[in-house]
């Protein structure tokens, strides 16, 4: 007898429905599986057979053939165990075929018939809803994750036995329900790290505010212990709250990476990822034989913080160049192309020199060449993608003992929201969301300078020895500063400020 059930596999951050076909017919007893299977899928054979046996289902000694179609997509992962088992049961006559129609199933089977959690449930649930499925049966541990998609009845089951009873109508399992709205409403209160903890550092706070307002990448320079990491950690807290679509997109990535759990069914806060500098290029951008999202995708919508930038391997940093421009990453492997989002804000921290104290000559013993060499490790093209650069001020004892609170994250965020709103309105037709994304042509259109301001910039070029590349960066940052001030026209004071944030350049370094 022939039967079919449905499950899905992930490709990038999208789910693709897969049809599981089972045929049980006369002939020598055997169990065959076809359909471009990875080895862990081939192993499903044993798990399914024994799980069925231990769940007290007798498999007839017949010729069983399983086909996973479409047969040209490579199937990976363990989510197929459960639908295969059900397909066999349907083909063997335990469950009527019509009971499994419109029903998406995923789950890994353990030998005793329990369903284990799998990764990538969220994108699968999404595509199930799009493809018109009504029910989604999945391991109990994954139920909440799947329930975020409210168009589906999400049924979490613990064992194979339970699932069969449910499908036969003998057991009623309430669809899992997650109240997404209240989930979102409570998010804002979870903030633990606040800019109010930061005393002084006015310049730093201001620079960060500008950076976030325009989603400019930022480099924070400072000696060890000056609070660079402390600042970086607080950046997600002043970004605009996550919107539903953004949260979904980020959650999908986390779902595929297996980083969503019982207690966190959705990513509700902007991510903050801080990989160690020994990270490999693959771990950073994603990849592997079976492509998985890397740190840049996990930080999408939030902050990717690279501490000790010059310590990263050059090759690791170079792979960032393309995603920084395109805001997504496409990984090409033998099996196909996988696209993951990479819409992150890059925050980097670095010491000004090897010993970390330049330009404090009392403590720093590096020669000018050494200082230049330290910075020289970072490639020009990467530096060109960092719009803002600030240096932390020396921390004095009074600062540490000071109990005065700084401005809170909430009030900074308010200004940022205002600036973002202006940007969204302005770029409605341009297809971008914030100033950092402006290209050369758009800069000409949106960052027009009046004659007086033009003169200031011209003057800056000749006296400060700016590079042509710095020109566009300064204009973009200017635009953001004007937006923060709520002004359409870029004024002189905006220009002055943007110039003092100009990005790090080797030639400014060290030469007196």
């Amino acid at each position: 007898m022939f039967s079919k059930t449905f499950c899905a596999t992930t490709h990038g951050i999208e789910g693709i429905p897969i049809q599981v076909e089972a045929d049980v017919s006369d002939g020598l007893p055997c169990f065959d599986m076809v359909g471009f299977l990875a080895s862990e899928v081939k192993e499903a054979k044993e798990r399914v057979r024994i799980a069925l046996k231990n769940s007290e289902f007798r498999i007839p000694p017949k010729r069983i053939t399983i086909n996973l179609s479409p047969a040209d997509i490579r199937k990976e992962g363990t989510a197929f165990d459960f639908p295969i088992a059900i397909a066999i049961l349907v083909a063997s006559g335990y469950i009527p075929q019509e009971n499994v129609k419109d029903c998406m199933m995923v789950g890994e089977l353990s030998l005793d018939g329990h369903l284990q959690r799998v990764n990538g449930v969220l994108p699968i649930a999404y595509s199930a809803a799009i493809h018109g499925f009504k029910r989604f049966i999945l391991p109990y541990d994954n139920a909440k994750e799947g329930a975020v998609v409210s168009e589906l009845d999400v049924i979490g089951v613990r064992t194979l036995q339970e699932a069969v009873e449910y499908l036969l109508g003998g057991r009623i399992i309430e669809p899992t329900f997650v109240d997404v709205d209240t989930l979102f409403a409570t998010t804002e209160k979870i903030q633990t790290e606040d800019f109010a903890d930061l005393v002084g550092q006015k310049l730093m706070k201001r620079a960060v505010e500008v950076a976030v307002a325009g989603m400019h990448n930022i480099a924070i320079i400072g000696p060890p212990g000056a609070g660079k990491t402390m600042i970086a950690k607080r950046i997600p807290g002043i970004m605009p709250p996550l919107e539903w679509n953004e949260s979904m997109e980020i959650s999908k990535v986390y779902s595929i990476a297996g980083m969503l759990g019982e207690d966190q069914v959705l990513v509700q806060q902007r991510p903050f990822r801080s990989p160690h500098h020994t990270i490999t290029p693959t771990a950073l951008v994603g990849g592997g034989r079976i492509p998985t999202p890397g740190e840049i995708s996990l930080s999408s919508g939030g902050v990717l913080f690279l501490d000790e930038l010059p310590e990263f391997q050059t090759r690791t940093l170079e792979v960032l160049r393309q995603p920084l421009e395109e805001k997504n990453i496409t990984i090409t492997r033998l099996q196909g192309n996988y696209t993951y989002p990479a819409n992150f804000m890059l925050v980097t921290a670095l010491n000004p020199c090897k010993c970390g104290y330049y330009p404090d000559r009392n403590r720093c013993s590096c020669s000018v060449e050494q200082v230049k060499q330290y910075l020289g490790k970072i490639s020009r093209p990467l530096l060109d993608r960092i719009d803002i650069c600030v240096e932390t001020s020396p921390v004095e004892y009074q600062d540490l003992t000071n109990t005065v609170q700084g401005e809170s994250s909430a009030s900074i965020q308010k200004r940022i929201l205002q600036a973002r709103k202006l940007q969204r309105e302005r770029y409605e037709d341009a297809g971008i969301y914030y100033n950092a994304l402006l290209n050369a042509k758009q800069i000409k259109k949106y960052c027009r300078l009046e004659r007086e301001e033009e003169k200031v910039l011209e003057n800056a070029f000749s006296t400060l020895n700016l590079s042509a590349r710095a020109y566009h960066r300064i204009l973009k940052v200017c635009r953001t500063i004007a937006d923060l001030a709520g002004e359409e026209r870029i004024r002189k004071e905006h220009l002055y400020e943007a110039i003092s944030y100009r990005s790090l350049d080797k030639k400014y370094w060290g030469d007196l």
Partner: protein
Amino acid sequence: MITERERLMWYAWSKKEEIGYGETRKLLLYYGNIEELYRLSKEEITQIPWISERAKKRMMEPYEEETEYNAYMKLSKVGAHFILPEDEAYPTQLKQMYDPPWFLYYKGDTPALDLPCVAIIGARACTAYGATIAKELAKKLATRKIQIISGLAKGIDGYAHKGALEAGGRTYGVIGSGLSHCYPKENEYLYEEVSKHGGILSEYPMHSQAIPFHFPIRNRIIAGLSDSIVVVEAKEKSGTLITVDSGLEQGKDIYAIPGKITDPLSIGCNRLIQNGAKLVQSAEDIIEELSVRYPYLQKKRKKSKQQMILLDEEVTEEEKCILKELDFEPIHLEQLLERTSYSITKVMEILFVLQTKEFVKEISTNYYIRLVAFAYH
């Protein structure tokens, strides 16, 4: 007059670096002239007791006039010249030395006779203070047509040359390597500029490397070329002091820029002042002394001022307020915010304007130094 034949012989001799200055002197005293030295047979050379084995080896090398002639002619292709004391281009000042160089290689020009020469020298690892003073001093002196001599090294030397070039003056570098080597590498641009607006001199053959012991020897030439020597920054034990010693032997005027007594880079200078070097507060202090020998300097252009560098242009109250807080030690923008009552944007604006006026420089992100001396009341 020197014959072309002798000139070629000296040229060939100049390439035998292993033969020391003193050895050449003794050889000449004993054998009379350069031609005689080439006539010596191998046996005769081996029997000379007072020269080193390495020098003997070089002396035994056969002399081929044609090869030397070809090599000599090639010098002009790279803009280099080879001169002997008998030549007009040879700086006359050097002839008064106890040990004038037997020959000189140079690019560009040699210092003009009728104009004063001042050497500005100092530490390689200098501070912002030293760098600014060296540059400004060179600028001021160069505008009065004074030729600036230095060693084209890192630090003070480099800034002295830069200052002179900025003022459009003439400046000369005496280097410790062959002319075809630029040491240190980062001064390559400066090397080109100095050879265009002045000249580069060396006692070493074209491809000679910059070997440490060359530098103290070339220092005597710096001293020899100059009327006065100004030391800007020097540690207690510094190569700069070798130049000073050799200057003292030659009877040159020594000047020193004072510094804080706590600053290790000023110990050398302060010690010099203690021992009788003239303390310099402004370029006028040097010009005044020089004007005795060079009357054209007596004509004062403007009323001389007490401070070495004072702001000529008017600065606004706001700018003054910021300048007051700045120093030669780098100061962070955040510190400026704390010490003044201005907003971030205002401070940034003032700093920008001061930078365009070149009163202030951002030496590293958000760290600023003051480039000018500033008298506030």
